[in-house]
């Protein structure tokens, strides 16, 4: 079973994503701040959905740290935020330059669409 870590601090959105992702064949864990996220990621995690505005460490800091550690540098990270724009802006550029594989604005995607994106990234190449 694929392991997906959702890093999200808003209870409203945690509930929404938990509800929908329960239909998927993944094992979903949730971290509610940046420091907890860093503790929970290891090489057994298949994908991280990472918010940017988080308590403790923000998403950019978490991403930078993950990509520097040998155990976690290859874990794919999708930034899932309500900051900035998907088209092309500086937040997106920064996330991609730090090693994120995708940058998604939460309010632009239904949970169905999000599950589809995650499944696409989880499929073996």
């Amino acid at each position, binding site marked *: 079973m694929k392991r997906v870590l959702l890093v999200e601090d808003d209870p409203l959105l945690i509930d929404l994503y938990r509800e929908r992702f329960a239909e998927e064949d993944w094992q979903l864990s949730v971290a509610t701040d940046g420091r907890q996220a860093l503790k929970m990621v290891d090489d057994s995690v298949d994908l991280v959905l990472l918010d940017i505005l988080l308590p403790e460490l923000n998403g950019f800091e978490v991403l930078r740290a993950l990509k520097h550690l040998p155990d976690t540098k290859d874990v794919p990270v999708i930034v899932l935020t309500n900051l900035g*724009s998907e088209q092309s802006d*500086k937040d997106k550029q920064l996330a991609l330059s730090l090693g994120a594989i995708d940058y998604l604005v939460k*309010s632009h995607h239904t949970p169905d669409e999000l599950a589809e994106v995650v499944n696409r990234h989880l499929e073996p190449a």
Partner: protein
Amino acid sequence: MRDVSHLRELEGRKNEFISIATHELRTPLTAVIGYLSLLGRGGANLTDPQRRFLSQAKLATGRLSRLTEELLWTVQIQEDRLMFKMAPIELESVARKVVADFRTSAENHLLPLTLKKPLFPTTVLADADRLEQVICNLVDNAVKYTPSGQITLDWRQTTNRQRRSFVTLLVQDTGLGIESKQLPEVFTKFRRLHQPETIRSFGAGLGLFIVKSFVEKMNGAVTVTSHLGKGTTFAVTFPCHPPNR
């Protein structure tokens, strides 16, 4: 000098406020859009009125979502945070897509929406997504301010003294028109013109500000001509690509 820096500081604070506000608006909006979409999946089990309520709720969240995006773009434009992926693109294909997207909405208002065929190549250097947004806003505006009549997208080609060629997309409506003294203000942000008859009109007055900002960032120009009671034409002009066709 102090006045200018004070104004700049105020503008910065206002932008910061809008940035935070849009982020905070997007989060509950994500939950509403998300749960509505989950509710909609049970389509077969819903009664007809429930389906109608769901569809109205989706329309309303769509409007809120659009307003939020426009506010965010306005700040991003002012702070130069938007980036443009410039690449050769056929203006006609973008216009065709927008017209297809708006056809139903225009027909619902009994407005024929026509895209004329250009007699010359329409390739320009632009960011495809932003270009689509520009044409979208112009067609949307035409639909809003045209109680009856028609909307036509037409083409012009011009060459300047340096023999540089330009392609112009015209978005023409036969709508309410704009008073000449109000014309200079149409591209000003948060400015909505006083027209009691604007029956289909809502929004924060950001659409045309975004059009002008995006077009100018992509090295183009936008102008407007209008006759009160007869209609309005917006002209978006870009240099042809490659330059010396």
